[in-house]
């Protein structure tokens, strides 16, 4: 009996019962995939098992963290001194810039108050740290160490010092998943800073690239143009740098232009990111108009509407040029 179990009958035992079990498991897996695809079960399951998933993510990110810490400890004094000097210079430069910006902001505030714009464009943000793990190699997402308990919510835009990175798509108690602009399922309304052409930028999924697939062939876009977020759709604030155009190719029909662009945000290198928090939506009736500035009858109907929207992008363009 023992011999025959090792021989061919064992084969058939695996073949008979095994196939049945395989079929059952395959059906189960197929059903799970279908249900997940239709109803998005996975995020819910993940939210439920957040207590389990979060430590594991942190654990998987730990070696990278240790490596980074060790590298910083071992950096030689010379390089530190050089870096120190460079940072001092940069700080000086930044301080000068800040002083200039403050002057501009003050001026801007005054102008806005004069124009009777009720609210100044104030941006609140929250710093978050990127947990260095790869989720799915075919999607472009990152995990950050701020979650629902720190007030993060789905749809919040994420930026770094250089441009727009993406937006929050999933929130767990202490972590959140950010969909980068280069993910194939990401789309972002942009605006050519030079010509004002509006377009949608899609993530290309492969490499560090964005695509603007459906621009008319005669659209005024050139290589080297900077693309800003246009603020249409209300997700991203207007006027943040997004990408720089790298290539223009006409598509096969010859009537559309395929534009490739490289994101300005350092998607792979960013360590800290900034979560933008939009101002609370005003609830109830609008506040009474303030008494500052010229009376409403004197200002043009277009002036009040267009200036606050255009001002940030114009200021950006000016600073960049």
């Amino acid at each position, binding site marked *: 009996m023992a011999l025959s179990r090792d021989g061919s009958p064992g084969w058939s035992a695996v073949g008979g019962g095994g196939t049945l079990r395989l079929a059952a498991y395959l059906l189960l*897996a197929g059903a799970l995939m279908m249900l997940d695809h239709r109803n998005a079960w*996975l995020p819910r399951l993940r939210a439920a098992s957040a207590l389990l998933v979060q430590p594991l993510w942190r654990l998987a990110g730990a070696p990278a963290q240790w490596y980074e810490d060790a590298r910083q400890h071992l950096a030689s004094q010379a390089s530190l001194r050089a870096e120190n000097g460079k940072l001092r210079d940069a700080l000086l430069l930044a301080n000068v810039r800040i002083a200039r910006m403050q002057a501009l902001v003050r001026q801007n505030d005054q102008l806005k108050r004069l124009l009777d714009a009720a609210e100044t464009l104030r941006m609140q943000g929250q710093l978050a740290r990127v947990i260095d793990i790869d989720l799915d190699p075919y999607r472009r997402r990152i995990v950050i160490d701020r979650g629902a308990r720190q007030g993060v919510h789905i749809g919040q835009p994420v930026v770094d010092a250089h441009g727009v990175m993406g937006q929050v798509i999933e929130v767990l108690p202490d972590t959140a998943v950010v969909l980068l602009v280069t993910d194939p399922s990401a789309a972002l309304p942009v605006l050519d800073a030079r010509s004002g052409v509006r377009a949608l930028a899609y993530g290309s999924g492969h490499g560090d690239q964005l695509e603007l697939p459906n621009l008319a062939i005669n659209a005024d876009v050139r290589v080297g143009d900077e693309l800003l977020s246009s603020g249409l759709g209300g997700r991203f604030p207007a006027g943040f740098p997004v990408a720089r155009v790298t290539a223009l190719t006409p598509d096969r029909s010859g009537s559309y232009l395929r534009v490739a662009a490289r994101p300005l945000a350092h998607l792979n290198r960013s360590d800290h990111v900034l979560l933008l928090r939009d101002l609370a939506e005003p609830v109830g009736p609008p506040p009474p108009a303030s008494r500052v500035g010229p009376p409403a009858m004197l200002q043009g109907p277009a002036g009040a509407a267009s200036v606050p929207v255009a001002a940030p992008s114009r200021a950006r363009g000016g600073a960049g040029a």
Partner: protein
Amino acid sequence: MMRAGWQRWVCYLSLALSVLLLLLPLPDALRPLRPWWPALVLLYWVLEAPDRVGLGTAFVTGLAADVLAGALLGDQALRLLVVVFLAQRFRARLRFFPIPQQSAAVLLLLLNDSLLRWLIRAFAGMSPPPPLAWMAPLVGAALWPFVFLLLDASRARLRAREP
């Protein structure tokens, strides 16, 4: 009795580590080449401890990997099932192959899996994997001897420590 307990812990620990290895950050260029660790580890245990590791273990491991990676629930579970089932089928032969030949068999299993992954992604309407991802089975097959020897050595060491 104790030995079985030890072995079980080695088995589950190695499976958990293999799932965590999937999350380890890699440079962008190497990312599609990432070997599919859970499959390699499961293959070892199917060959060496078939009464402990079977379709159920494969399914649970795959689900855990899916929940952590968050792509599509059931995707890796299904693919691991297929790999493990094929390995069970040919276990009698695979077990006595020399290691290079085992590597070749692993390559075939992983290539078959790449095809399956491509199909699943096509059905789910996701973007197809990059062309470089077809080379991942080669990396997996090249790593097979190391996985095999490492797991074998750790198991033998634990066995030697047991009275």
